[in-house]
């Protein structure tokens, strides 16, 4: 009785593992595309956010207006809409035909730069006025104050929201399947439709979780590094 149950369980389990093994090459190829989209987006949008953040605070109004409008548009419309927009705009209006991955990267970078700019801006505005005054009293230039005093302290403030955005980005990559990018989501959907078996979705969920877990560990480690100059109770 029990041995029957165990043996049938083992058979089912090995069948499942065989099926997952068949799925794996497709899913891993999708994961690789996802990783590329993720890395390129972070690599380019993290620095792009900084000039937009600084531009949102300058006195010269045309630059300020442009930067704020940029954030308003890219943060205020769905990423999916932006993907469709660039997917059709570039070939139809400009006759530029790009691979789905390139179009996705461009869209994601423009979109995420807007979010990062707002995070940076909040971080920069969170720096105490006394820091600027001390820097000015010591004769530091505006540039030296920004680079040496304000931005290093901003890093600590923005780290948690930036890590959070990075985790959101892992999941947002799934949206690129809408314009035909063969990333994880598209790979799994193909398998599920073909085999009428939702196993692929389960496997893909585990892959997404692995990525977000790794990111969480990395951000915790970074946050710990910035704790070294925290205010501590002094006896």
């Amino acid at each position, binding site marked *: 009785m029990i041995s029957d149950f165990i043996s049938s369980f083992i058979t089912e389990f090995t069948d499942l593992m065989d099926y997952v093994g068949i799925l794996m090459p497709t899913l891993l190829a999708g994961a690789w595309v996802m990783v590329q989209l993720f890395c390129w987006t972070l690599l380019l949008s993290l620095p792009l956010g900084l000039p937009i953040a600084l531009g949102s605070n300058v006195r010269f109004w045309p630059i300020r207006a442009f930067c704020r409008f940029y954030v308003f548009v890219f943060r205020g419309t769905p990423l999916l809409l932006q993907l469709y927009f660039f997917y059709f705009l570039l070939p139809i209006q400009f006759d530029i035909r790009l691979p789905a991955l390139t179009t996705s990267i461009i869209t994601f970078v423009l979109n995420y730069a807007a979010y990062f700019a707002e995070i940076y801006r909040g971080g920069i505005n969170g720096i105490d006025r006394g820091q600027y005054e001390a820097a000015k*009293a010591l004769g530091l230039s505006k540039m030296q104050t920004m680079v040496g005093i304000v931005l290093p302290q901003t890093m600590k403030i923005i780290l948690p929201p930036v890590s959070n955005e990075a985790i959101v980005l892992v999941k947002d990559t799934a949206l690129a399947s809408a314009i035909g990018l063969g990333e994880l989501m598209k790979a799994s959907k193909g398998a599920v439709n073909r085999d009428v078996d939702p196993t692929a979705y389960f496997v893909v969920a585990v892959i997404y979780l692995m990525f977000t877990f790794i990111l969480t560990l990395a951000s915790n480690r970074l946050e710990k590094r910035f704790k070294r*100059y925290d205010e501590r109770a002094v006896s």
Partner: protein
Amino acid sequence: MAGKKASGSAVVRHELKENLQAGDTILEMKNIVKKFDGVTAVDGVSFSMKKGEIVAIIGPSGSGKSTLLRSINGLENITDGEIDLYGTTGMVFQHFNLFPHMTCLGNITYAPIKVNGVKKADIEKRAEELLELVGLVDKRDVYPGQISGGQKQRIAIARALAMDPDLMLFDEPTSALDPEITGTVLSVMQKLAEQDMSMIIVTHEMQFARNVADRVLFMNKGKIVEEGTPEEIFGNPKSERLRDFLKAVTSR
């Protein structure tokens, strides 16, 4: 001698540092007016001080003491008047304003390296002397977040001194400290006084002002109401307002 003459007001910085002798005028303020959104914080203040002099500014809160002090190094842009400054200034703030992401040594050496282009080895040697002066050699490699308020303020003094200022500005340097540790900061300032450092000290420490200052200014409602030696100001106050103020602060 270039200074902005935008709205009839200016801070004129004279480059006469080497020629400056004890007794020469280091600062001259003429008819300083500062308005914030129509509210007059400083209302036509004039005064001058000589190199090596120690001036204490006392008065009730909101009397314009800090605003006047902050206009000297341009932290406040004056609405009207003229400031002639012969030399450089260093400033010590009520809330220290140390750079939390740098060690105490880093706080002291950062501006000399960046602004004056001093070599790191040279300024570190100087920084050690300054740490010695403020009695915090052991806090060299510690972050400001790990030391007490009194220690922070002494590091802030060392940081300002590292730029070799001709005039030190103190904006209520002990007001944010617990009463029992103000002494450590005041004794460092006392040492500077003995080294003939020119200083303007905005303070509520009447006893300290009395002991250290050459001259005391009493401000009220944006004006200098009374000015004189500590003996005159504390021993023989002439105006009713000053007598009331002194009564109020000494009976605390």
